[in-house]
């Protein structure tokens, strides 16, 4: 752990009593390494370490009885502060059904998460959800959403793969509304943030259905590019929050910190498995200690 590494760095300090500037610099290097290994974006790491350096000086940590412990405490607090501010719950509509639009890179977990979110909202918030299948590109994508929709007992509205996803979205939302759904979750095809045509399609879908929530589904193992991917999705569709997936693995998930730090958008949910009940509200303190390692 970071604390063990720092204790190792300060191992020869028993006699000295106080940490020198070199000791603090060594500690900051360890913190930087830990965050880079955790996939936090290097620019975010740079400004984060600068913040920590100031706080360590303010706290006079060089005089602390347990400096390693004190430093880790400060780092943890700063991580939680960075990730904790921001609404975790979804925005629900004041009148008419709540519309949720799922977006993200290929393979990040959108289709699976769409079904999980429907299940969570029904069980925890007593909602009556419906799903809309707007991925007309990936082979058997609609089949996949219909299967997971059935597994969670939620209707799936689809029009096959020959229609325009924007039209399907509009039609699906209308159908679901008429059928009495009060939450409508729209699954979309995975797309690259640099694909102009597909990003244009996403913008058009958003314009057509006016969602109350646009959620970026982000794989927790994403590396340094998480920042620019998130920035491009944000510029295109101003997403409201992030769902971080595959956290049942051992990816440290630094991408979460990077995205929150750069876009200001909160992590709303974390996905912790392939089963359809594996979705939880986000806890910043748990994420902070995971990133620190």
């Amino acid at each position: 752990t970071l604390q063990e590494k720092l204790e190792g760095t300060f191992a020869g300090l028993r006699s000295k009593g106080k940490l020198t500037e070199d000791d603090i610099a060594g500690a900051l290097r360890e913190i930087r390494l830990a965050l880079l290994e955790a996939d936090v974006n290097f620019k975010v790491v740079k400004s984060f370490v600068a913040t920590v350096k100031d706080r360590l000086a303010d706290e006079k940590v060089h005089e602390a009885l347990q400096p390693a412990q004190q430093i880790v405490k400060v780092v943890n607090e700063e991580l939680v502060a960075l990730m904790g501010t921001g609404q975790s719950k979804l925005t629900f509509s004041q009148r008419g059904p709540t519309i949720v639009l799922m977006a993200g890179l290929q393979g990040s977990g959108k289709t699976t998460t769409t079904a999980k979110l429907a299940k969570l909202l029904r069980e925890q918030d007593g909602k009556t959800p419906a799903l809309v299948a707007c991925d007309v590109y990936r082979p058997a994508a609609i089949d996949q959403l219909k299967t997971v929709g059935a597994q969670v007992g939620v209707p799936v509205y689809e029009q096959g793969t020959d229609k325009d996803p924007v039209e399907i979205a509009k039609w699906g939302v209308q159908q679901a509304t008429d059928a009495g759904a009060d939450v409508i979750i729209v699954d979309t095809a995975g797309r690259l943030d640099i694909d102009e045509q597909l990003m244009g399609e996403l913008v058009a879908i958003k314009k057509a259905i006016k969602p109350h929530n646009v959620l970026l589904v982000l794989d927790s193992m994403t590396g340094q590019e998480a920042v620019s991917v998130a920035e491009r999705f944000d510029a295109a569709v101003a997403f409201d929050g992030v769902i971080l997936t595959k956290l049942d693995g051992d990816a440290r998930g630094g991408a979460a910190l990077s995205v929150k730090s750069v876009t200001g958008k909160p992590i709303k949910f974390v996905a912790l498995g392939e089963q359809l009940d594996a979705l939880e509200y986000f806890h910043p303190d748990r994420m902070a200690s995971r990133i620190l390692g």
Partner: protein
Amino acid sequence: VGAFDPEDAATWERIEEGLIAADVGVTSTVAIVERLEAEAAAGRLTTAQDLAAALRRIAAELMRTEQSDRIDITANPTVVMMVGVNGTGKTTTIGKLASRLGAHGHGVVVAAGDTFRAAAAEQLAVWAERSGAEFVRTHDGGDPGAVAWDAIEKASETGAGVVLLDTAGRLHTKTNLMAELEKVHRVLERQLPGAPHETLLSIDATTGQNGMRQAKEFAAAVDVTGIVLTKLDGTSKGGIAVAIAHELGIPIKLVGIGEGVDDLQPFDADDFLQALFP
């Protein structure tokens, strides 16, 4: 622009950051920078072009592995097993491979070894049909080992030269799922000496340092012979593949550059490194 000043600390910081930004990771970044510093100290780098060329050359040297970076399909039939973490592009890669091999006159059997995920077999069936390959599957929840077995049976029946076996995505941290993968591997070995001739691990180019964990654990479970680096058409440079080749000695064999049937290329170190260090 133009001159490279090896005495300038800011320049070295930018070089390091460039490597980190490409997901090369700290360990391989240090290895590359040490060699670069040696070349700079020897006076061999004076311009920015010298620097870029040196970076490409050093990275190429570090990425060189004992294993071939080509797929070997000389065995008859050749069995290729596709493994990797969820959503990294296994099924799509098999679809592309089936089409490419079919176009080169090989009889191909495509086997739906993912018996777990919703519509997994249906997804692969579409790809098999597109390439004209034979398709083998079982019922949902069936035994992937049985699919592997049936696929090799089908190949000997039809004289197909290549078997492409898809497997379910799985996190390397799940012991039971990794054990299942080892079991499928053993089924192949027992049924056909030498099989699987290639075990390809799909690594998403957007993956950060967890890619090292993935490669390590999958290689420990099923002797990975090569990496398919997918989604390189995105903005991620796939630097994690540099670290995997350098630190684990596993070669990149194929590169995925899109979602279409033709978007698969044999790995070309020069192209890859040119994009990484322009």
